[in-house]
């Protein structure tokens, strides 16, 4: 299996590095193209979808793919393609909303804890430690149980469970950044704390946060779909991708596309976001 040491080709670091940069730019473009495609589909769903995603045509249920229904119809005769297209609206909106709120809360708390230190930092750090120990998924279920099902509940529940990782990340970055010359210079220049935080600290810690956000969106969308699949998130008639997998599971043997397609749609979006976050993450560091 192993090549003896003598026969190993000399490693060409510089060219490997160039290759990585080129590859990462290429990955970035593909990733952005995928994500933009999803956003466009979500934005123009009513114009793109050939049918109403909720319109039932029971006489024509479980139809195989045809020119009238490109991906066929589901158990209630609804057009699969139209449901997938409208699903983009629901899942992407929820995924973005849920993570954006977590990002906002987490960023503000992380900046405060890292910048002011003292009791703010101590208190927040204890809270973060505690939240890290509570398993996220059961807590999510518990919150939905208490808040009731619905779009807003889902967004709040994800924000409550999700802010911790942003706070941890930003606090760490700020602790390093606040000792650097440019921050000290800004403080010596008698700029207000708020201005130093917003104009000088935030831009310098944001790259890592965006990397985390991109992977967080992937996780949030797949968790939202999981809740829909389990029947405790978005509810049945809504064309949510997880709900669609659950509905399609009954027809796996005859119409495998019904359960497969919504999952593939999630996976593909995940690939797009992963490519983006990977190439941002790989830009500054060597590996």
């Amino acid at each position, binding site marked *: 299996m*192993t090549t003896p040491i003598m026969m190993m080709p000399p490693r060409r670091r510089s060219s490997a590095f160039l290759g990585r940069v080129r590859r990462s730019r290429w990955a970035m473009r593909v990733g952005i193209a995928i994500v933009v495609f999803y956003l466009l589909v979500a934005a123009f769903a009513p114009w793109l979808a050939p049918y109403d995603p909720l319109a039932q045509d029971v006489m024509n249920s479980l139809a195989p793919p045809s020119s009238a229904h490109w991906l066929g119809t589901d158990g209630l005769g609804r057009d699969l393609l139209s449901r997938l297209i409208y699903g983009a609206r629901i899942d992407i909106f929820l995924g973005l909303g849920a993570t954006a709120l977590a990002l906002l809360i987490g960023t503000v708390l992380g900046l405060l804890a890292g910048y002011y230190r003292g009791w703010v930092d101590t208190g927040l750090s204890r809270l973060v430690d505690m939240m890290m120990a509570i398993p996220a998924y*059961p807590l999510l279920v518990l919150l939905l149980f208490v808040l009731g099902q619905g779009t807003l509940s889902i967004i709040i529940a994800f924000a409550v469970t999700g802010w911790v990782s942003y706070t941890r990340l930003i606090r760490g970055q700020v602790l390093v950044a606040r000792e650097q010359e440019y921050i000290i210079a800004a403080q010596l220049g008698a700029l207000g704390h708020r201005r130093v935080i917003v104009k000088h600290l935030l831009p310098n810690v944001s790259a890592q946060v965006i990397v985390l956000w991109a992977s967080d969106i992937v996780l949030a969308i797949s968790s939202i779909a999981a809740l829909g699949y389990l029947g405790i998130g978005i509810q049945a008639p809504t064309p949510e991708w997880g709900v669609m997998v659950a509905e399609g599971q009954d027809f796996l043997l005859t119409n495998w596309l019904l359960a497969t397609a919504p999952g593939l749609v999630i996976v593909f979006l995940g690939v797009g976001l992963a490519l983006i976050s990977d190439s941002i993450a790989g830009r500054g560091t060597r590996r």
Partner: protein
Amino acid sequence: MMRWKFLLRRLGQAVLTLWAVTLLTFLLFKALPGSVAVGMLGIRAGQEDIARINQELGLDQPVWVQYAKYMGNVLHGDFGTSITYARPAMDVILTALPTTIFLAVYAVLLTAVATVVLAVLAALRRDKLADHIIRGVPVIGLGMPAFWVGTMLLFFFAYKLPIFPAGGLLPGFSGHVKSLFLPAATLAVLFTAVLVRSLRASLLEVLDSDYVLAARSKGLVGGRLIVRHVLPNAILPTVTLLGLVFAGLLGGALIVESVFALPGLGSLLITGFQRHDFALVQGVILLSAAAILIVNILIDVLYSAIDPRVGLG
């Protein structure tokens, strides 16, 4: 001596965290919209009936009295009566627990094997085709929802090729091994995708190091070199990651159980959720928090066992 002190401190922290979790669940349930009595009796319940239920459940007392009673019960392992099963929630949970533990351990074993094999393969075939393919796995794997991977495995390996049972739990050890293979494999696919990149990176670092060069110059090649010299030094960062992953693993197990209709904690959580069974939901959550805390302590201990340089401090 250090070891015991460390363990005690970690246990103390774990107990504190657990207490915080109980407080959180208690407060969240207090914040629940609508009264428990109306939930149990239905919307048409009369005033006297509601008062009677409230008195029976102690809901007419001040909140702190309720909390003290609740904590007392929890400390005795009493989470209340599950209204779905009309049995103590603890009993119901303890019946379901072994399935989930079996599934989790099974998944960790499959994940460990798959991660080590794939990462070693990628590191040894650096920049070759196998390496590129293995490095692509996380990009796809991270976005794959567990319930969908499970459904696909079910489709291919239970329906198309009937190798494994299509859900449900077979009795006995061999029955468990057989019927839990697909659920465990589902989780292993997802967690291997998370771990393989980190192990590959540290393997490459170790393969470049002087002591591996020294071992090679002594004539060590192949399996022995990897197993004795490279892996033990490269695996540490991945072991820490495994600890973080375990929390996700438990959540994943809860989802996968629903896909494969397994009688574990996850199914209980969903049932409890749908039937508004407080005792059940709360018991499952407390128990899973406890499990995660214990596993994290075990991983710290394991960490120092693998790397003697890491003190338990």
